[in-house]
C-alpha cells in the first residue's frame, strides 16, 4: 500500500490498492473530524490554493475545511476578480500561484483535461476538484467511502448510476472506482444521455429503472442540468422524472439495505422526491459528512506523506491524541 503521486487527477489512473490507501487514510482522519478540536498539524506551513473556475460552494468549502483541519494555510483565489478576467490563461495563473508559494492547487475548471494540463506544467501538487465532464475524483472517493462504511465492502455490490452520465464527471469517476474495487456498475438513464459507447468500459446500460429497483444495492442519482433539456437531449423534465426519478413508490421496492445517494445539490422533485431525499434510504448527508475526511486524506497523501508500514495510522501521527488504526483493506 503506497502513494507516490504528486497529484490526484482522476480515478481512472488509480489502482485498487491506491484507492484503498486513500479510503483507509480517510478512515483515520474521520476520527479526527469527531474530536472537539478538529485539527492535526500534518500540513502546517503548507499553502493550499482553491482555484475554482466554476461556482461550487460545497466542494470548495469541504476542501477548505479539510486543509484547515490539517493546519495548512488556505488561500482562496477569486477567479472573477483576478487577472483571469483580463485574459490571463489558466496555465499562467497557476504558474504565478506556484511562484508565490502554493504547495497544493485545488482546481475546478469547466474544461475536461484541465487538471492534467496543469499537473504536467507544475511542480506543485494538483488536486482535481472537477474538470469538465471528465472526472471528479474526490466526489467518487466520498461515494466509495460511504458505500464501504455502509456495506463493509465494495466488491460484489451492484451499483446503479442514474441520469446524465454523458455530461457527468461524477459518473465517470464513480464508474472507474467501482470497477477497480470489483463492483458491478449499471448505468441508467435516457439513451441520449447514456450512449452505448459506455458499454465498452465494462458496465451494463439500462433504460428502465424499474427493472433495477430490486437488483441494486445502491443508486447514485446524478443532478440533471436543465440546459440538457434545452439542448433537446430529452423532451421534458416531467417525462425525465416519470421515467428515471426516485419516488416513494419506487423506493418501496428496493431491496433491504439498499441506499440512495446523490452528490448534491438535489433538484428536489426531479431526481428524487423530498420524501425519498429525506427518507431512511438516503445517505446524502453521510456523503456530505464524509467529504471532510476523504479530502483530508487526499491533501495529506499528495503532499508527500506516503503511509509507512502497514495500516494508515501514520496519517494522524503528531495529532494530540493517538489514532485508531483501520486495517480493513490493508
Amino acid at each position, binding site marked *: 500500500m503506497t502513494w507516490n503521486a504528486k497529484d490526484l487527477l482522476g480515478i481512472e489512473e488509480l489502482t485498487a490498492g491506491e484507492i484503498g490507501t486513500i479510503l483507509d487514510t480517510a478512515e483515520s482522519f474521520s476520527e479526527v473530524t469527531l474530536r472537539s478540536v478538529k485539527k492535526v498539524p500534518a500540513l502546517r506551513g503548507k499553502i493550499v490554493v482553491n482555484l475554482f473556475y466554476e461556482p461550487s460552494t460545497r466542494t470548495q468549502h469541504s476542501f477548505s475545511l479539510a486543509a484547515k483541519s490539517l493546519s495548512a494555510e488556505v488561500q482562496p483565489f477569486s477567479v472573477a476578480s483576478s487577472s483571469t478576467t483580463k485574459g490571463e490563461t489558466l496555465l499562467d495563473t497557476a504558474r504565478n500561484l506556484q511562484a508565490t508559494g502554493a504547495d497544493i492547487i485545488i482546481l475546478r475548471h469547466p474544461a475536461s483535461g484541465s487538471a492534467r494540463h496543469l499537473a504536467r506544467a507544475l511542480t506543485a501538487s494538483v488536486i482535481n476538484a472537477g474538470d469538465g465532464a471528465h472526472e471528479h475524483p474526490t466526489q467518487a472517493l466520498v461515494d466509495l467511502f460511504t458505500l464501504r462504511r455502509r456495506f463493509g465492502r465494495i466488491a460484489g455490490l451492484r451499483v446503479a448510476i442514474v441520469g446524465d452520465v454523458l455530461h457527468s464527471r461524477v459518473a*465517470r469517476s464513480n464508474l472507474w472506482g467501482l470497477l477497480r474495487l470489483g463492483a458491478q456498475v449499471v448505468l441508467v438513464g435516457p439513451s441520449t444521455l447514456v450512449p452505448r459507447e459506455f458499454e465498452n468500459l465494462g458496465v451494463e446500460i439500462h433504460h428502465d429503472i424499474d427493472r433495477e429497483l430490486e437488483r441494486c444495492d445502491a443508486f447514485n442519482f446524478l443532478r440533471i442540468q436543465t440546459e440538457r433539456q434545452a439542448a433537446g437531449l430529452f423532451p421534458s423534465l416531467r417525462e425525465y422524472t416519470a421515467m428515471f426519478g426516485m419516488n416513494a413508490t419506487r423506493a418501496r421496492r428496493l431491496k433491504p439495505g439498499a441506499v440512495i445517494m446523490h452528490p448534491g445539490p438535489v433538484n428536489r422533485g426531479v431526481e428524487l422526491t423530498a420524501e425519498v431525499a429525506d427518507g431512511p434510504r438516503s445517505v446524502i448527508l453521510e456523503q456530505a459528512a464524509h467529504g471532510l475526511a476523504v479530502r483530508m486524506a487526499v491533501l495529506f497523501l499528495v503532499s508527500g506523506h506516503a503511509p509507512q508500514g502497514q495500516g494508515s495510522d501514520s496519517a494522524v501521527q503528531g495529532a494530540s491524541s493517538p489514532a485508531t488504526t483501520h486495517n480493513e483493506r490493508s
Partner: protein
Amino acid sequence: MSDRAGFARGEKGSRLLIRAGRVVDPAQGLDRVCDVLVEGGRIARVGEVGDVPAEVRIDARGLVVTPGWIDMHVHLREPGFEEKETIRTGAAAAAAGGITAVACMPNTSPPIDTEATVEYVLLQAERAGFARVYPVGTITRGRAGETLSEMGRLRRAGAVAFSDDGAPVPTAGLMRRALEYARMFDAPIISHCEDKTLCEGGAMHEGGVSMRLGLPGIPSSGEDVMVQRDIDLARVTGGRLHIAHVSTAGAVEALRRAKALGVRVTAEATPHHLTLTDACVEGYDANFKMYPPLRAPADIAALREGLLDGTIDAVATDHAPHTIQEKEAQFADAPVGVVGLETLLGIVCEEFLHAGLLDWTGIVRRVSCAPARILGVPGGTLASGSPADVTVIDPEAAWVVDPAAFRSMGRNTPFAGRRLRGRAVVTLVGGRVVYRDDRGR
C-alpha cells in the same frame, strides 16, 4: 495562369543538371536511373544527358527524383492572421518539405472572395519566391454561407478552385447552385463536410475515447451525411466536387460508390488522418486537435484502403498553423488544426513506401499527379517542356521531427519526436533551387 502563380522563373538559358537519380514520372511511365536537364526553368530532357555544361549540378546518385509535390490543402493565414503564418514562411516550409506548390484556403481575413485578395496572395507568393501558391477562392461571399461569391472574377484573377473550408456550405440549395455555377469554369468545389447540427460544440471524435475523457464528441455521421449530400448534388448538377480531408469509413464507402457510378468527385486525406487515431487525444494535448478529428482505428483502415485503391485521389496536409499560446490552452478551448508541410514527405515515405504499401509511382500519383489534375494546374510530370518543378528525395535519410526546426511559424504538429525515414534534399521550382538540404552530403 502559370506565370501568375507566384514563382520566379529560371534565368533564360540557364542550365541545371540532375545527375543519375532514380527518376519517377508516372505520366511518362518512367521509373529508372537517368538524368534530368533543366533549361530556362523548364524540363529540357529526361534520359542519358551526359556531361553537359550546367550552372547548377545536383548529384542524385542514390536519390529519387520526382515531379514536384503539390499540397492541395493548406492554410497560409495571410492576410489577417500573420501571427500564425505568413505566405513567405508557409511557402518556405513547403519548399523545405519538398513541396513545390500549394493551394491555399480562403479562410483569411479578409477572406479570399475578391480579385484584390487573390492578387495580393499571388503577389506575396511571388515576393517570397519559394513554392508556388495557388489561391482558392471562397464559394460564398465572406464565407458566410449565404450567397455565391463572384467566382468568375476570382477565377480570372487566378483562383484555381472554390471552397468555404473551415465551414460547410450550410444548405443543399446553395451547394447545388455552387456546383452548377462552377461547372462553367470546370473548377472544383472543395467541400468541407460537416453537418453543424451534429458536430457543433464537439472537440474530438465521438466514441469510446471521448466518452472516457469527458470531451464533447464529433460524430462520424456529421461528415458522412454531408459527403453523401454533396455527392448527390454533384451527380445531378454535373459539377466537379472535391471532398477535403476525408476521415470516416462511411465517407470512403460513399466515395467508392459515387466513383463507380461515374460522379465527378475526387477526394483527399491528410497524413494525420491516415496514421493517427482518437486514442492520441488521451493526454488532452491540443496538438492532436483538428477538424475533422482523429477517428477510430476502423476509419484509419478504411482511409488507407481508400488511398490504395484510388477512392481517395490525393494526400494533402490541411496545414493549419496556430501560435503556441493558442495551442497551449485547454483541449476544448484550443483552436483546431495541425501543421503538415514539413512532415508530409517523411510520413508518406515512412508509412507507405517503407511499409511496402505504395511504390514510388503510386506515391507520385497521389502527391503530384492527382493534385495537379484536380486543380488544373501545371506540374505532376517531368515531361519535356513542363515547368521544372522537381523534388529530389533521399528515401533513406533518417530524421526526428523537431517542431523548433520548422520553417513554418506553426509548431503544432502531432508528429513531434517521430523518427522518420525520407527527406527532401533539393526542391526546384521553375528550375530554381528553393531548398537544399546539405546535411550529411
